């Protein structure tokens, strides 16, 4: 088992202004230097593995290095606005020499470990150069616009012959140095976020963040695919059973009754007539069951008019008085419509059954390319997602569409359950 991989989403907030970029410049530089030192220690520990000592200390060193990578990623997220995903290492195997040896073997044969080491060896050099740059510009600029005038004009010293390309051998050249220095300070401050972002991206490339993201995506897809497969199989079984026990059985009964009626016609026409009447009643029942079954597979209003109208129809027929505010385009992707419809219906049924509410309110709209359906009740609140429960089932089915279900339900209510599913053409499916 592996722990959760840190994802590379840009954290909320982003870079906090130009001047924090300068602080970030120093913090990130310090963190990268720490990485460099830890890497040296880790490499030495690996040399000691054949001597036995390394077996005990190497896994610990790697763990510390891994934690440092996560710390740097957090700092990047804070100062550069974008972090990077750190691959997950195999979990520790336990304590003792044998466990240490096993862990060393597992680490040395693990792709994530080599991704981490590649980053640890290379990133300090490139990263420090990028991270220190904004601070360097500002420091050098301050030297030109503040230190040189003070030294020259105040103390009469000549600490240097050249400031960049400005010859500062005479007092008359000092203003040029001041102008250039100010320019460098401003440039350093303005370009700071860019350097830090570049550093963060470079870290991300070296550690192979995209691979981590892809792996997380692959495992999410495998899990949801399994859900979908099981769900589809279960649904087919249910339909098969319903048809078998319902309409099919009734058709058999109808055929039998008609057969008997046929033989009764010459001898007892009245009994035959009664049987024909029963057969007709049975056929109406069978039709009713087929109708209910079809409604469960694909509701007519959904097929005719799309999700918005179907939600309104659902509200009309709901067990509790239900208001709707629907702002949806006429049609969405049909599989998405169907999934969202059944999820919403389940949430409404749940609310009517368990919330003790007197009214329900359903909203449906599209925000930022995501279909968002909210169901609010004025019931007693305290709803939670119980693993294996109704809400959990809805959440898992929505996961196949990269959807999510969130519950806000304080004690004493009100409860709001929100379903969100991406519905723009740039769906994550093809990311």
């Amino acid at each position: 088992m592996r722990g959760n991989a840190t994802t590379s989403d840009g954290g909320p907030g982003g870079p906090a202004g130009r001047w924090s970029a300068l602080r970030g410049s120093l913090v990130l530089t310090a963190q990268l230097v720490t990485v460099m030192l830890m890497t040296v220690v880790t490499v030495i520990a690996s040399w000691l593995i054949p001597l036995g000592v390394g077996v005990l200390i190497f896994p610990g060193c790697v763990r510390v290095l891994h934690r440092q990578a996560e710390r740097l990623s957090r700092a990047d997220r804070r100062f550069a606005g974008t972090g990077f995903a750190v691959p997950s290492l195999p979990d520790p195997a336990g304590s003792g020499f044998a466990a240490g040896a096993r862990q060393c073997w597992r680490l040395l044969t693990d792709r994530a470990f080599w991704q981490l080491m590649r980053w640890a060896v290379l990133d300090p050099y490139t990263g420090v150069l990028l991270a220190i740059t904004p601070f360097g510009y500002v420091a050098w600029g301050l030297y030109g616009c503040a230190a040189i005038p003070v030294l020259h004009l105040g103390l009469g010293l000549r600490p240097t012959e050249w400031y960049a390309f400005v010859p500062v051998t005479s007092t008359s050249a000092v203003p040029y140095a001041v102008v250039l220095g100010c320019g460098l300070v401003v440039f350093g401050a303005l370009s700071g976020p860019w350097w830090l972002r570049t550093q963060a991206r470079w870290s991300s490339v070296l550690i192979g963040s995209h691979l981590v993201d892809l792996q997380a995506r692959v495992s999410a897809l495998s899990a949801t695919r399994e859900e979908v497969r099981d769900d589809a199989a279960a649904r087919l079984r249910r339909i098969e059973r319903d048809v078998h026990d319902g309409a099919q059985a009734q058709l058999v009964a109808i055929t039998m009754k008609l057969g008997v009626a046929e033989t009764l016609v010459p001898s007892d026409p009245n009994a035959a007539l009664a049987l024909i009447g029963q057969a007709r009643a049975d056929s109406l029942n069978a039709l009713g069951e087929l109708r209910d079954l079809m409604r469960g597979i694909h509701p007519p209003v959904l097929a005719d008019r799309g999700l918005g109208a179907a939600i309104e129809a659902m509200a009309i027929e709901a067990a509790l008085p239900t208001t709707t505010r629907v702002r949806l385009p006429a049609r969405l992707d049909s599989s998405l419509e169907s999934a969202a419809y059944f999820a919403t219906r389940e949430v409404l049924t749940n609310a009517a059954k368990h919330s003790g509410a007197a009214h329900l309110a359903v909203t449906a709209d599209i925000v930022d390319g995501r279909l968002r359906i909210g169901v609010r009740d004025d019931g007693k609140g305290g709803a939670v997602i119980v693993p294996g429960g109704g809400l959990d089932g809805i959440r898992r089915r929505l996961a196949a569409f990269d959807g999510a279900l969130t519950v806000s339900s304080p004690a004493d209510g009100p409860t709001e359950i929100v379903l969100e599913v991406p519905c723009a053409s740039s769906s994550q499916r093809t990311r």
Partner: protein
Amino acid sequence: MRVVVAEDQIMLRAGLVSLLEAVGHQVVEQVGTGPELCRVLGDWRADVAIVDIRLPPTHTDEGLQAVLAARRVRPALPVLLFSQYVEQLYVRELLADQVGGVGYLLKDRVSHPRQFMDALTQVAGGGTVLDPTVISALITRVERRGPVGTLTERERQVLDLMAQGRSNAAIGDELHISESATTKHISNVFAKLGLHASLDDNRRVLAVLAYLNER
């Protein structure tokens, strides 16, 4: 009567036409698609139309849309819609104009030709006819939602038949009760729902439906 039939399933359409002709009606137009239906309704030369909700080319609610559009131009144009399912949303849309001359039945009802023909006659005469499943769904919902005077089994049967557009005499015949008993049941239904009973046959149905729909 001169009847228009809009139905895309050939077998059902042929069955309907032979049924109509057997009881002496004249089928003046048979159509199988939405656009054809629009043309026929726009150029109205019949007494009543029987329309399937789901028609080509989209196989969605073409029939219903055509009827709603035609009734906006020509209010109370008598149409009997029939379908494999009844949807409350569509019931609301059909009844929204409150003028009658409209029916909405399950296709199953064709299996009782006499009742189906009665319904057709009611609609042609400006009445309102709804499938019993609509009424029972409406009543169930109203009862689930709030404290209304609960209807007795007999009162519900009377309400069902009333919504199917039957007269008091026809309701009495169906339930094997006297006409005065029928009238008593009807006034009970109206009292329990808090409605005025002094309306003519068609308007009282609309009043009951409007009441049930609003709950």
